[in-house]
């Protein structure tokens, strides 16, 4: 389908999982690949077609309730995303995509659903108000900035590390962590789109497939990062109001 030298980014079910401008994550990867002289193809995989197995990076975005369940049905049948990751592909999930990649998630119907199991994570529901606002976290790839809008939390198992250490916002809902990393699978509650706003994270995803890349500075993105970081820091509370109550109930 695609020449060996090219990089293929697969946008998984954009018609269902595109609520938060998730196409932007694919565009950001392509821009940063182009800047290094890498030929990068974007493939949009529709829910009615079999998911391509030959992708290098799979992006699983955010979706509204009904759309998320449709996507879940599509991804469960065929095991193709798991096969692609086993074969060496990287995968990045955002919001609903994060939950779909996990071992188990509480669906919009309030019922527990078996996830794809690519992350040793159980995603439940925040028992307070919806988490909405600018988020700031520290990470190994520079600070992470994004906008969160979710009712889900994330309980990380032993096999998974957090993507970032929370500075502002709710993230995984434990007051400390944001997102998850397990091998070549990364996930986050942040949009913005998050790979546009976080050049270091975008490069990390690419490098999982390409190996080390030359530095590339994008001044407009760097300015955006500083602006959004300042916006997150101006949020009144670093943590979610219901956090104290949650901590005492944590399983």
């Amino acid at each position, binding site marked *: 389908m695609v020449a060996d030298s090219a990089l293929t980014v697969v946008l998984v079910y954009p018609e269902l999982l595109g609520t938060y401008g998730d196409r932007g994550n694919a565009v950001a990867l392509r821009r940063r690949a182009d800047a290094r002289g890498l030929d990068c193809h974007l493939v949009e995989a529709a829910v009615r077609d079999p998911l391509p197995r030959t992708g290098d990076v799979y992006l699983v975005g955010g979706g509204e309730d009904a759309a998320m369940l449709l996507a879940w049905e599509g991804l469960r049948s065929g095991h193709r995303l798991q096969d692609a990751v086993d074969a060496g592909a990287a995968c990045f999930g955002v919001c609903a995509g994060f939950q779909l990649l996990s071992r188990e998630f509480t669906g919009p119907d309030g019922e527990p659903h078996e996830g794809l199991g690519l992350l040793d994570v159980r995603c439940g529901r925040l028992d307070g108000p919806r988490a909405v606002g600018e988020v700031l976290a520290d990470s190994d790839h520079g600070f992470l900035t994004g*906008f969160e809008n979710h009712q889900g939390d994330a309980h990380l198992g032993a096999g998974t590390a957090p993507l970032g250490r929370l500075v502002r916002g709710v993230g995984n809902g434990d007051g400390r962590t944001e997102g998850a990393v397990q091998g070549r699978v990364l996930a986050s509650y942040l949009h913005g789109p998050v790979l546009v706003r976080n050049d270091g994270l975008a490069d990390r995803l690419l490098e999982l497939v390409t190996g080390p890349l030359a530095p590339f500075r994008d001044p407009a993105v760097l300015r955006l990062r500083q602006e959004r970081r300042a916006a997150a820091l101006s949020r009144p509370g670093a943590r979610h109001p219901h956090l104290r109550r949650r901590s005492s109930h944590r399983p």
Partner: protein
Amino acid sequence: MTSLLPQHRRDAAAADGVAADLAGRPRPPAVGRSRRVATATRLGHLAEVSSRLSGLGAGGVIGGRVLLALAPGAVPELARGRSLALVSGTNGKTTTTALLAAALRTQAPVDTNADGANTQAGMVRALAAGDAATVVLETDEGWLPWAVRQTRASTTVLLNLSRDQLHRHHEVAHVARAWRDALDGAEHVVANADDPAVVLACLGARNRTWVAAGTRWREDARVCPRCGHEIVSDDGGWRCRCGLCRPRPQWWTEGDDLVGPATRLTLGLGLPGAANRANAAMAVAAAAGLGVSPEGALGAMRTVRGVAGRYEVFATRTHSARLTLAKNPASWLEALDMVGARSRPLVLAFNSDGVDGRDPSWLYDVPFDGLAGRPVVVTGRRATDMLVRLEMAGLHDVRRAGDVAAALSLLPAGEVDVVANYTAFQEARRALGHRCHGR
């Protein structure tokens, strides 16, 4: 207007000490209104005038709030015996309200909330401000159920329903269900057959007029609002396995023609773009239901050239700037479609204050690629987000300016399109208006 008022009304108004508002418009207390509502109306108007005189607040909304506080049950009384049309939807409601009001004025005087105050207080204020037998109310999507129940409007015009402020987008499905409940048994809805959420909302209405008004924004129309399954498109239509499908429209547009029952007319609007042709189709269909001939309705609608500053052309010393409002993903698509037909230099003004929504992620669902090759300047408090978005779309020579006036100064003299989201639009309108008048 004063001369149109019967003598006994003018006398009554004068006797009440509220002869005219600041614009000189008479404010007669309506015949047949209860003392409580009449008093509340007067005090509301007083609050409005003092708010405006003090330079604080929005005037009209305050008047409506005072009225509601003093007479909470005023709306059914203010609506009784009047022919009332509500116009709602995510996009196009201000323009469609203006078009429909123009069409209905060919028959009789019309009261309307032309100021765009479309929540509870704004609608109440418009109802109380006059006593025309016909009322057209622009209605916020969230307030529509309340308005339907309180006013018992004989006509409801539903344009579309899509995400507005992304950080609260999960409310879209909730709003659709609330519409459906409120419109169960409604007398007449004029509705967009192309929007599944709108169609679902209208199924319980007693009479339905379907208009093919299109949906440029499809992201919110891919999953069935009734059952959650995927919506499938089939030659011009759409359907879901649960049976919800596109109704056969009675009105549609073909190029600049409007086609309806035994009718084909050239629209020839004074407003630009496909979105406004669709708005006009909705307004003609609604006016026809209220007894205005399509020809007569269109004749009046053609004279509408700007609505609350939208599409207004501001002439400065150096530039002729046309201002377009693009407040959410769907209306950005419409605006880009509109400016895409021309190749003028472009100013994009982008904020994220209040009603603008705090999460502009959806910028990546709007294709800006078509702007490549023309001079573009960005401004606004989220200008950097827009700049990065354009860069990701392959536009690398976009410039930045502190405000719209500074943006214009970066562009060659002549015609310019200014596209702005809500608060940026209001700022641009003030700034350009000031520059024009300051000449």
